[in-house]
């Protein structure tokens, strides 16, 4: 990664006009203005149109290509051109910019206030790719779907923009004045009628602003709201230790892991690190760890588990208690006795509880119990107790002070605020939390209350439900557009630096808060001053440190210290004893959605089209039920049902998920958006709100008192039906050896020689070409033992390779374009299926069936044995796809790009041709990265180093399940994996000689349970 250190951090210019939005304008204006002019915009003087909008909107398509400073441009195949296109250089070329060569900048993406360090690849000021920052403890080099998807949001023409106060549009300067006037009106009563509703934040900068705001308005109150609040988790630790502590799991140290309704590898904020740590011990042999999962909904974690116990949400506590009881009775952990409570006779989990307890007891100090945020505090407390009793504390689990400014982010705070608003005690509500009108529990009717507030100030990236109900509306600046800071879950701080100046007239949270403080200082200065004082540095020393922080993406030694946590057994016992769980009837469980999380990614096309890791649904959510429950209710896939719970009801289509707990319904949050309106600006093609009219809104059934699950749900069929967009055809392997799996026990004896027949040479008439003499023989290996199916690679591939989104209707026609798909297979019984996920992209057959049928040489082999796809030669007979046994080729049935908005073109990776209608495309092993590295290496007169070329999927993978590299280098990881005894080839008997090898999945079931 090119170092960040040479990055200029220009001081904020002093001239008043510029200092309006100094942070962005100051840091990058030169680069940016040149960038736009670079693009050969018609020479419009800045006066004619507002700079933020105008220059970009007037940017021609060809224009942007010139951003590449004159290198061969990117897009469009059949390029017929006007004579002599424009070639527009910089006026002042920024020192760190080399036309035609990308830079990587380190920054951080914070979701619900918890930062993940990222490296962003940027071409002359155009961020095009988000990757994990290896130096960051929450990333370790991996990157999740959501962090990557934020890049698409950045360029989305549908983003909210501008400032509107009581119907009047405001430029920044007048707005600052207006805001300070409003603030002044609260000085009299010290802000008694001033309220802030913010999203979870760990940013020291925001913290500092909050402190200063409360100094000026002592009686004002800050409330934090997150639809996926982890209050129960915090509360649980408060019960267990008397103080809110943040447990940190060290899965690499644990041999036995029990997850109680915890989606460790899915939607958990630490999923990246946890996946990496857990799979680091996912190798066959004595050291192989074991994962038990007790959950309601089938999650990626559950699918990856060695044993999965499906139970209604309310049963988890009982299961935990049963384990506690067993540990107390049979394994001498007496301190657990008061917590223990064995399961009623006839419970399906009797054996399980006993076996898990025994297994945990066997591996004291090397085991841990994790509890998910969806479980009540008592269960968390129980979890802490179990960990303490099992000697996990300090060994496999450590505790830190929470990094969020407000430990309380859930419905309770919101309820109090709602009460205050209802009582008319709030004159001004400053809302920077994400869309509370939509995401607040239904019983609070927060959307309705908002209208009661005389001055409701809402800062948002979207014109969403809340936007419609507030009277001060501010388009929010994207993190990649503004300065700031954020902390990871362990407290490690990162400086958030802008990659480009704001694309549109927008405001950042820091700007808004300091505006209310009546301060005009740029965020850039504020961050630097704050960190100067925190670091107790000055002058050159600070500048040096500062640029080092920017370059590394983290501020060293800022992690929270580990604190000793001693469980308060009585309190825990009391809490566990006192807990009242809703029971009776069907249970409903609210779950974050794998695609849109809590709904904030609903407008993100990448996430919408990403197939759900379990159901493979896209552009939709569904009421998930088990086959048995569906049978009892007499409903099938696609049946629209009426869900009634405590006199509230919604209608939702049903999707039957094997392995779902009986007697419960899972409702993924975040869909059913009807009110997101497109940005009302003159766009060539107005973006339709993506999320409108798809899915259903589960928030309407969610109560602040039953936040995560509830009972007494009634389901009645409406007789209507709904057609889903499902990307996967069939979920069974049909007895075919595609995704191979063995248990740790069977593997050495039985598996090793069974796998033999799925690898090795096939008899052929013609002696195949031998690539061993070549300098490089690129290959890939995918370890099914590590793949959780999290889908990060799918988005990474989409981002790297300019893969278009085709939309719901086209997916229903089976025309999705993902080069890399994750096949998930269910085997065994529909009640307790074995789930296995298998990433499949082009396997680059050496004897490729697709090639010899192409009449025009559009797909052929390179001298190094890559299966090349040459888009500009393709005439689109689609014969190659017919003859591809892996069906990994994708065809541009329609013009999926259409006329792109200028900002959408900025997203395109200039190293990859943008495909036109009528051509075939497929995974290229990221050949653009290979060639870039090759040229770099050959210019420097050295061979390409191991690990220098990483495929996008490999780079993103949290579990390092994907290895890519040079098979002719015996020391490379991929070569080693190709030699591994677990290696096998997909559809080996066809003799296609694939370059991508798979490694058999090894599970580690507990012998007592098999």
């Amino acid at each position, binding site marked *: 990664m090119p170092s960040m250190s040479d990055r200029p951090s220009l001081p904020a210019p002093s001239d008043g006009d510029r200092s309006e939005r100094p942070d962005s304008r100051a840091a990058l204006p030169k680069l940016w203005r040149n960038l736009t002019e670079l693009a050969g915009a018609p020479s419009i003087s800045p006066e004619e149109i507002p700079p933020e909008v105008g220059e970009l909107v007037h940017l021609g398509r060809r224009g942007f290509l010139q951003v590449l400073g004159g290198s061969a441009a990117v897009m469009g195949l059949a390029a017929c051109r006007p004579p002599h296109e424009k070639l527009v250089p910089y006026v002042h070329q920024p020192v760190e910019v080399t036309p035609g060569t990308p830079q990587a900048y380190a920054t951080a993406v914070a979701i619900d206030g918890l930062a993940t360090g990222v490296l962003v690849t940027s071409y002359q000021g155009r961020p095009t790719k988000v990757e994990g920052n290896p130096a960051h403890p929450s990333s370790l080099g991996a990157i999740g779907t959501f962090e990557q998807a934020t890049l698409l949001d950045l360029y989305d023409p549908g983003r909210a923009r501008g400032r509107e106060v009581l119907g009047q549009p405001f430029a920044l300067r007048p707005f600052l004045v207006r805001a300070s006037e409003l603030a002044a009106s609260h000085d009299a009563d010290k802000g008694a009628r001033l309220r802030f509703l913010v999203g979870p934040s760990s940013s020291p900068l925001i913290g500092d602003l909050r402190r200063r705001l409360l100094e000026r308005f002592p009686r004002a109150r800050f409330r934090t709201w997150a639809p996926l609040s982890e209050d129960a988790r915090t509360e649980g630790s408060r019960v267990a230790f008397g103080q809110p502590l943040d447990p940190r799991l060290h899965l690499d140290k644990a041999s036995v892991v029990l997850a109680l309704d915890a989606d460790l590898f899915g939607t958990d904020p630490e999923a990246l690190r946890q996946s990496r740590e857990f799979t680091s011990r996912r190798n066959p042999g004595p050291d192989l760890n074991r994962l038990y999962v007790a959950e309601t909904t089938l999650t990626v974690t559950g699918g990856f588990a060695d044993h999965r116990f499906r139970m209604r949400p309310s049963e988890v506590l009982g299961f935990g208690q049963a384990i506690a009881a067993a540990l107390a009775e049979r394994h001498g952990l007496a301190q657990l006795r008061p917590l223990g409570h064995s399961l009623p006779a006839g419970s399906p989990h009797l054996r399980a509880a006993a076996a898990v307890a025994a297994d945990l007891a066997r591996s004291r100090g090397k085991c841990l119990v994790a509890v998910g945020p969806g479980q009540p505090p008592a269960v968390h407390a129980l979890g802490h107790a179990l960990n303490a009793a099992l000697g996990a504390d300090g060994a496999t689990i450590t505790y830190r002070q929470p990094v969020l400014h407000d430990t309380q982010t859930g419905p309770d705070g919101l309820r109090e605020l709602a009460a205050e608003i209802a009582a008319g005690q709030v004159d001004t509500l400053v809302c920077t939390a994400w869309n509370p009108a939509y995401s607040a529990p239904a019983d609070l009717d927060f959307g309705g209350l908002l209208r009661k507030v005389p001055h409701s100030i809402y800062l948002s990236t979207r014109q969403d439900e809340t936007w419609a109900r507030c009277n001060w509306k501010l388009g929010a600046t994207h993190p990649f557009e503004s300065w700031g800071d954020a902390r990871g879950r362990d407290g490690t701080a990162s400086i958030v630096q802008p990659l480009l100046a704001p694309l549109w007239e927008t405001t950042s949270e820091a700007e808004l808060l300091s505006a209310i403080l009546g301060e005009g200082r740029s965020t850039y200065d504020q961050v630097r001053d704050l960190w100067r004082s925190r670091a107790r540095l000055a002058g050159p020393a600070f500048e040096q440190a500062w640029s080092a922080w920017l370059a590394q993406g983290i501020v060293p030694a800022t992690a929270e210290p580990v604190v000793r946590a001693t469980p308060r057994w009585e309190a825990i016992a009391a809490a566990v004893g006192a807990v009242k769980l809703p029971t009776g009837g069907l249970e409903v469980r609210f779950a974050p959605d794998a695609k849109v999380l809590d709904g904030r990614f609903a407008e993100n096309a990448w996430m919408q089209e990403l197939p759900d890791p379990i159901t493979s649904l896209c552009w939709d959510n569904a009421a998930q039920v088990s086959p048995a429950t569906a049978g009892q209710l007499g409903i099938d896939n696609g049946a629209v049902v009426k869900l009634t719970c405590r006199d509230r009801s919604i209608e939702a289509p049903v999707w039957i998920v094997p392995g779902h707990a009986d007697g419960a319904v899972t409702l993924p949050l975040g869909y059913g958006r009807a009110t997101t309106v497109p940005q009302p600006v003159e766009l060539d093609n107005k973006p339709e709100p993506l999320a409108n009219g798809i899915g259903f809104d589960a928030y309407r059934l969610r109560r602040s008192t039953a936040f995560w699950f509830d009972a007494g749900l009634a389901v009645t069929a409406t007789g209507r039906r709904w057609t889903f967009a499902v990307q996967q055809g069939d979920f069974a392997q049909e007895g075919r050896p595609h995704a191979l799996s063995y248990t740790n026990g069977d593997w050495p004896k039985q598996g090793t020689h069974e796998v033999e027949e799925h690898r090795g040479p096939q008899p052929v008439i*013609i002696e195949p070409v031998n690539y061993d003499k070549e300098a490089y023989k690129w290959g890939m290996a995918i370890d099914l033992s590590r793949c959780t199916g999290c889908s990060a690679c799918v988005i990474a591939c989409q981002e790297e390779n300019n893969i278009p989104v085709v939309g719901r209707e086209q997916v229903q026609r089976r025309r999705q374009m993902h080069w890399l798909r994750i096949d998930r297979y269910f085997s065994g019984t529909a009640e307790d299926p074995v789930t296995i996920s298998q990433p499949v992209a082009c396997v680059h*057959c050496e004897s490729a*069936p697709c090639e*010899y049928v*192409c009449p025009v*040489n559009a797909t*052929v*082999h390179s001298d190094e044995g890559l299966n090349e796809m040459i888009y500009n030669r393709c005439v689109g007979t689609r014969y190659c796809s017919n003859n591809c046994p892996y069906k990994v080729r994708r065809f541009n049935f329609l013009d999926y790009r259409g006329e792109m908005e200028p900002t959408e073109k900025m997203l395109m990776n200039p190293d990859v041709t943008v495909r036109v209608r009528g051509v075939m495309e497929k995974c290229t092993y990221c050949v653009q990265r290979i060639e870039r590295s090759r040229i770099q290496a050959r210019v420097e007169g050295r061979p390409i180093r191991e690990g220098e070329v990483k495929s996008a999927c490999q780079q993103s993978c949290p579990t390092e399940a994907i290895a890519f590299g040079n098979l002719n280098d015996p020391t490379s990881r991929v070569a080693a994996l190709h030699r591994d005894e677990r290696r096998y080839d997909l559809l080996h008997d066809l003799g296609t000689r694939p370059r991508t090898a798979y490694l058999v999945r090894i599970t580690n079931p507990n012998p007592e349970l098999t």
Partner: protein
Amino acid sequence: MKTYVLAKFADEGAVLSAARALREGGHRALDIHSPVPIHGAEEALGLRPSKIPTLALLAGLTGAATAFLMQWWMVGFNYPINVGNRPPLSLPAFIPIIFELTVLFAAGAIFFGVMILAGFPRTHHPVFEVEGFRSASIDGIWLSAEVESLDAHPMVDQLRTLGAGQVSIVPEDLQVVTP
């Protein structure tokens, strides 16, 4: 000075014997016109077998050679590319195109051979000047003799004696005379 003498005959036997008689009398420039091929006409007129078959054979071989050399040079020599691990020169894969071009060239040669050997297109010919000759493509059987204008009338008499029905003379100036 060429002149055509056309004689209409009642049946095929008559025209054949007339033709034979005239050839024995030393007339070579004879032709028989009929709606369907008359067996024995070639023999009666002493025509040598057609060259078409030879043409077709040569053209066919040319086609085959062209097809093979083309494919060999293009993918085996000029730009050999590794396609699906198969050798650039895979002869079996060349066969279909070799065959097709053989047929194409041969067929072309046959058709254009007829055009040239039969002297097509020739929309005008002196014999068309005789109105009655229109029956030649329907049911009429005609014999045409190409003679010096001075010999036209003797020829007419000779044909009459050989059993011709209507006889016409088409002189140089195409002014048809029906004696």
